[in-house]
């Protein structure tokens, strides 16, 4: 018999993704922007740091998502209900706008001849912000209904 969880499985999942993305990619972009601000944009090896952050993100996500699945096995295997689907759809809508604004900004930067370190990381930042916005929207919706 499992104890009843105050948060649904999908809300816990959204919290994990939100904190993992914001924490790990937040760290990556702080280090990157610090290097750029220090005038090391041309020599900074951001690829290695990015790979480490991505691997760590995958490990953290898998471990924590499996852990909450084991605590709520029934909910984890059940399909999302209508309210959860509605919340997910709204969150995807929010994320779409974030990624579109980011893509338009990067297009403008490329047209203006911005260096690759800015355009590649800018595009990546747009994707990360979209994911953070998606998870934030889900968490806010779940909390509002609680």
């Amino acid at each position, binding site marked *: 018999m499992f104890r009843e969880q105050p948060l*649904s499985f999908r809300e816990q999942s959204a919290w994990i993704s939100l904190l993992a993305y914001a924490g790990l990619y937040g760290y990556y972009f702080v280090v990157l922007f610090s290097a750029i601000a220090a005038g090391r944009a041309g020599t900074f090896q951001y690829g290695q740091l990015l790979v480490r952050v991505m691997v760590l993100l995958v490990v953290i996500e898998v471990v924590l998502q499996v852990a909450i699945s084991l605590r709520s096995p029934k909910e984890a295997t059940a399909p999302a209900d*209508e309210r959860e689907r509605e919340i997910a759809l709204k969150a995807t809508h929010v994320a779409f706008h974030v990624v579109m604004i980011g893509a338009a900004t990067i297009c403008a930067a490329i047209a203006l001849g911005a260096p690759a370190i800015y355009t590649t990381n800018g595009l990546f930042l747009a994707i990360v912000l979209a994911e953070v916005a998606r998870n934030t929207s889900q968490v806010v919706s779940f909390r509002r209904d*609680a």
Partner: protein
Amino acid sequence: MSHVPIRNEIRRLRFDHAEMTQADLADRIGVTRQTVNAIELAKYSPSLEVAFRIAHVFGVALESVFHYEAGADRKR
């Protein structure tokens, strides 16, 4: 989803049916306990299908479970 002009009698009906828990009702209508809680607190309007399932579980007509409050505007 913050406020809906539809009130319901789910809490009373649960109490009248051997103090059925939100989790029991959720299992029987195929949603999560948190969704039942949101419906009960009038923070979420269920689909017609879920509304009919709730009424069916309690063995009553739909209008005995949900009441529309005319004039209560939906706050978005």
